[in-house]
């Protein structure tokens, strides 16, 4: 009596919401294969009448998308690797290594989470200018090398490493570095994967900072290049959609493959917090 109706409603809502969620993305894909100008018609077409790779060709051959793709990969990968190293070391230290001022420092870091990053952007730009890092890859990478959230994430997870394990290794005469690389890192592997995904996604999708620090067209990352393309080429919708596809597909693919880890990390980072 109630069951079939309720089931239908629940599943119906699920389907409707799913459609709303991914319909724009599907349509983006569809338009990217349309002929130039095809999308500026009323009524708007849902599927391309004669699918073509023309827009992608334009993007890579004339608008230099390949370069931006490379830039995004380079910057994101570097940020991820560095963030993994720095955040893990620090997170482990805050979790397991006693040192003076540990708790106070950590609380200070947590408090700083409230400060919006944009406050720091302009002086940071001037600082990097002094260091000669403006308009370089390093300029885009450097601020992301360590993040408070990353340290927090690792610390939460690292707390679950049994102290006895570490003590035993110390009694055996192992140095702290060896303990870190041979015991701690393997134990932290799940959170490392999560942290890697987080860092990569954040760096890939970052918009405001690369907009400010990378003025040279050759160095721009995908979001920045896409933004300037879209402000210039207001008319070429098909081209813009293709650009969006190129920007979104890598991270979407990464997410689809590793979603379990990503979601796990999200929970770890927020629920306990």
């Amino acid at each position, binding site marked *: 009596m109630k069951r079939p109706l309720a089931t239908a409603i629940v599943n119906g809502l699920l389907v409707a919401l799913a459609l709303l969620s991914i319909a724009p993305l599907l349509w983006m894909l569809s338009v990217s294969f349309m002929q130039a100008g095809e999308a*500026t018609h009323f009524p708007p077409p849902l599927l391309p009448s004669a699918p073509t790779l023309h827009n992608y060709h334009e993007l890579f051959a004339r608008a230099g998308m390949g370069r931006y793709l490379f830039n995004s990969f380079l910057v994101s990968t570097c940020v991820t690797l560095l963030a993994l190293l720095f955040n893990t070391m620090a997170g482990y230290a805050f979790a397991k290594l006693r040192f003076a001022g540990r708790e106070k420092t950590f609380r200070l870091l947590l408090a700083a989470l409230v400060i919006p990053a944009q406050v720091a952007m302009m002086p940071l*730009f*001037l600082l*990097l*200018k002094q260091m*000669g890092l*403006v*308009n370089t890859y390093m300029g885009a990478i450097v601020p992301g090398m360590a993040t408070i959230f990353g340290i927090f994430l690792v610390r939460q997870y690292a707390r679950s490493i049994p102290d006895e394990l570490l003590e035993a290794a110390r009694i055996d005469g192992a140095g702290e570095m060896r303990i870190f690389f041979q015991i701690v890192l393997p134990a932290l592997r799940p959170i490392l994967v999560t942290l890697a995904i987080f860092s990569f996604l954040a760096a890939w999708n970052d918009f405001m900072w690369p907009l*400010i*620090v990378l*003025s*040279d*067209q*050759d160095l721009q990352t995908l979001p920045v290049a896409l933004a*300037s*393309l879209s*402000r*210039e080429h*207001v*008319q070429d*919708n098909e081209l813009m959609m293709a650009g969006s596809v190129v920007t979104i597909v890598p991270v979407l693919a990464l997410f689809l493959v590793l979603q379990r880890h990503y979601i796990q990390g999200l929970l770890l980072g927020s629920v306990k917090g």
Partner: protein
Amino acid sequence: MGFEGEQVAQLLPEFERRNPGIHVDLQQMPVLSAHEKLLTAYAGDSLPDVTPLGNTWIPEFALLGALDPLDEEIAATPALDVADYYAGPWDSGVIDGRTYAVPWYVETRIPFYRVDLLHEAGIDKPPASWDEWRTAMAAVKRKVGPKRYAILLPLNEFEPLLNLAIHDPLLRDDGRYGNFRSAGFKRTLAFYKEIFDNDWAPKVANTAISNVWDEFGNGYYTFYVNGPWNIAEFRKRLPPSLADKWMTMPLPGPDGPGASVAGGTSFVVFRNSRHKAAAWKLIAYLSEPRVQVAFHTLTGNLPPRRSPWKDPSLANDRHARAFREQLERAVPTPKVPEWERIATELRLVGEQVANDRMTVDQAAAELDRRADAILEKRRWMLDHGGGHAAGATQ
């Protein structure tokens, strides 16, 4: 920047052939963010060697000490005959008696219009004054009805209002204060407001018009006030049936033919460039009359020198004729570094007025208030004989 940036690439191979050893690395910039990007590049010490700079930005960059004075190079290059240049555009590159910029192309804004639609509305002669223009726009609107318009004046551009207003001084006291409460500016603003109040123009940004050239062809509007590059665009994009149904006309003023802004782009060499000699060679090359004619053919942009205009491609270009006439009445914008900012406020207040959120008097007072606030530092610097307070005003 923009379209010109794409086209100039075609002129570069010959330059590189004539100057082996010099390779030109062309970087394109979207027009909308060019100003921000150049300033950011300046702050980050990552400017290119040579850039075409919008004329209105020259005072700003000169003040920053970013530009290299070019008087010596100009004197040493006889082919670059100063007398051959139109006075207005050349003057926009002269700050405090030194020349910092060489005009590349000039532009000014005049109405493009649909001859056939105007004729259908009963107007056979292009309007030459605001009164005639009012009559024409009203007639067109009556004919086309509520879903189409007489004129397009995008609300997210400051050029339309600025070009209508430039015949009066917009700042006073050597650029210390705004002059927007003057009778002249108020009259312009009232005319601007009238156009929107009567629904002769749609209250839209240019992003709402998916393709300005197609819509002109569709008759969505009859008048379109814009620059010379549209000549090439219209010729390229309008269907053959409309080829002889559109024309250009000088910009009407309050009592007759009006003034317009002497815009355009001039070449500057940046002070921190390490390739100044090569940069100058490129400028000299692109300033040659023959190359200027070629550039015009590619882009429709107008040469700032008189000799290229003798070339048949320009002399016989019926659409360019109105521009040639208008250039004689083109006037530079106030040469204060803050001008870009004040022009933005002009646009924002203009948008409010067009949407009937402010009266003309309120808007004039507001513009003066904003301009005075923006110019406060300039007043302080002029009064203290400070730093590099550069630039005379109109």
